[in-house]
């Protein structure tokens, strides 16, 4: 065995698996949670800008209205929607419901669809954030 020092996969890992739905939702829940931390910082910027006066708010608004700003805000909306719906799924699991494989896969797909529809619809109806 010592003759084979090259790295070999020890067990199926993220890059090797064909992701099951439950694995994708689990990883994305953590991933979106970390991303929403950036959202919290942006929320602080928004509120501080509003409290500081019209000029500071205009700076925030123009940043939010830029292409990068809109992409970031849409990303946060999508991450927030996913974390919201999948969080409800987690609370159901914590209460002992929905553990059957078929149920868990089905609710996972529902969460994906709901979060995509909600984020796109919200972004479309809100008409781009901050005027």
């Amino acid at each position, binding site marked *: 065995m010592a003759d084979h020092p090259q790295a070999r996969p020890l067990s199926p890992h993220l890059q090797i698996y064909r992701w099951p739905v439950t694995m994708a939702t689990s990883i994305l829940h953590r991933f979106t*949670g970390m991303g929403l931390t950036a959202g*919290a910082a942006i929320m*602080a910027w928004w509120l*501080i800008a509003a409290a500081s006066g019209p000029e500071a708010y205009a700076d925030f608004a123009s940043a939010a209205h830029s292409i990068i700003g809109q992409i970031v805000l849409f990303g946060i909306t999508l991450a927030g929607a996913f974390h919201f719906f999948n*969080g409800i799924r987690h609370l159901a699991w914590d209460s002992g419901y929905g553990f059957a494989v078929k149920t868990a896969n089905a609710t996972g797909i529902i969460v994906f669809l709901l979060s995509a529809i909600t984020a796109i619809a919200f972004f479309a*109806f*809100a008409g781009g*954030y901050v*005027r």
Partner: protein
Amino acid sequence: MTTQYSRVEGLGASRSGTQHFWRERATAAALIPLMLWFACAVYRIAGGGPDATVVYLAQPLHAVLMILFVIATIIHMTLGIQVVIEDYIHVESQKIALFLLNRAFGWLVGALCLFAILKIAL
């Protein structure tokens, strides 16, 4: 790792029992209605003029709901990020440093948000 005192308290080796777990879930449950309100608030504010945020948060009910949303969010976020640090950082000194940074970030963002809301509302 269980001291006599924490054994009496039933807190076990983690020194805090299930407090972290419960707070994460309690804030998650609180954030369901608060997030729905927040989505409505963002929708209303995004459709308003440049003073929409100030006008909206000047209303006492919305100011209080925004304060609750910020508090629940910051607690939930800080607890969640702490678990990520616990899972991936195994060098004790680095872990504690990141714990402190995580807490500092939560306090900073929370203080900025809450002060701003109060300044707008009062």
